[in-house]
């Protein structure tokens, strides 16, 4: 086949490079300049005491992660609720399986003491 058929790909690559490059250069020009004072955290006029980059307990991340997982999974329930009437028995069964899986996961992390603050 003709090589010319690959022209769109070439154009696509070129475009991708151009856009990426443009964004980087622009932000370099436009972005605010940093100075030492500007970088200081603003604490209502009171000078900051401790460095901002301190370590958090790993439990923050764990809890946050678990929240996201369950939150997104439960978000699935909203669309299902709208069509539950049309889906009939099958839809209900599928939903029950889905909810069961989530509950199972909840029980699991509960038993694993992942929700307890240490």
């Amino acid at each position, binding site marked *: *086949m003709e090589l010319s*058929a*690959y022209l*769109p*790909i070439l154009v696509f690559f070129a475009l991708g490079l151009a856009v990426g490059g443009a964004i980087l250069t622009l932000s370099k020009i436009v972005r605010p300049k940093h100075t030492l004072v500007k970088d200081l955290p603003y604490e209502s006029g009171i000078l900051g005491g401790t460095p901002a980059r301190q370590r958090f307990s790993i439990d923050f991340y764990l809890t946050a992660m678990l929240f996201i997982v369950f939150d997104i999974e439960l978000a699935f329930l909203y669309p299902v609720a709208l069509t539950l009437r049309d889906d009939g028995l*099958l839809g209900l069964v599928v939903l029950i399986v889905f909810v069961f*899986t989530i509950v*199972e996961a909840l*029980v*699991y992390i509960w*038993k*694993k003491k992942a929700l307890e603050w240490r």
Partner: protein
Amino acid sequence: MTHLNVVAATPQIIVAAAGVLAMSMGLFNRYEIRRYGPSAISLAGIVAAFVMIVLLWGDREEAFGGGIRSDRFSLLLSAIFLVSAALVIGLAWRESAAVDRRGEFAGLVMVAVAGMMLVASAGDLIVLFLGIETLSVALYVLCALEVWRERSLESGLKYLITGAVGSSILLYGFALLFGATGTVDLAEIGEQLGGTSFAGEPLVIAAMALIVVGLGFKASAVPFHMWTPDVYEGAPTSITAFMSTATKAAALAAFLRIFQGVLPDLAGDWRVAIAVLAVASIVVGNVAALAQDSLKRMLAYSSIAHAGYLLIGVAAGSVQGAEAVIYYLIVYLAMTMTAFAVVIIREREVENGEMLEAFAGYARARPVLGVAATLAMLSLAGFPPLAGFIGKFLLFSAAVEANMTWLAIVGALGSVVSLGYYLRILGVMWLGTPADGERPARLLAVPAPVMMATGTAAIAIIGLALFADPMIDISRGAAEALLAP
């Protein structure tokens, strides 16, 4: 909803349910349930799924409106995954990761198997990708299961990062394929691309390239193999065994499903790229394995080389090729499991049990294990008339018949080189002298489940050679099912 036909998907459902159940078993306070429950449930699930596979054996049936296909191909591949999982659960009986976290271990293995079965039986691109992600995520965790061991964590992390890249490339390929054809259904894609109108379409070409790369990553083909030695070495050994057998089988299943099953008419376009990957894998895998002192790393490179051999069958682009790949996957399962079993047994006995020097004189002290290891190594090297030889013979002759004699030659030369390191292992095991004294240090009794798994795998190496004919027949049935309307 008329095509629900849940029956055809029962093996997958059983395995997934068993996985969830097995994981919960690990939560019980009673030690016995925590210790034996997960394995028992998993094994029961495996047996039940196996029975369903036997019952379903036959022509194609579809479940969930075509999303899941149950044909001879998917059923046979599922059987491979199940056997692999059963052996791994047996082998890991006393492995530290598996003992302390038995629930997670067995549960995740089962979830991974469910993902693999989805890959093998996928009827559309979405299910295929779903399957690949299911198995990958389960494996990321499994690799890092020994959280107290730095190497294990590193292994899981590396696999996660590179795996994410691999998956995204694959997904990009699927997206382009969808873009080119406007459908995710594999059968419809096949129909659309069967004609000539789409064949030279850049979109399709790009899609194929991306898919080759994405799947090549999962099969650990060169140059997408870099993660393999590190991950294989760091992961718990039973998981390494599982990854190098079942995961590889799943990746090859995806290769066959897409290229042989959906795009056979475009073989002229994709076979060369796959052949190049095969050659690169054979060369790099075999040569790099020569310099390894850790058995796990050596087997990791050996598994890279075997990905190459297997890809030869895919590149042949014929029913014989697919048949050879399937048969070799079965054989490869038996011999690799045996090889890893020996490492697992030794690792429990001494520190650094995966290093070559830990095996000095080991076969003399443990002749039965020694014979099993010898069978596995010789078979891996393709020594006639063991099963590995028959498998390679089928693969290479498929290449010759597809007029790719050069591939067969590279493969054959590769297996000569591979003798260098397989013989080295055998030499050390039979002829080596242990560093301290006459007998190798610390021989412990081997737990019965480990012994049973090892024995089964070792006997299978002989059985697959003696009864090659029926196995090849079954493989051919599976290969033909790929193209069945």
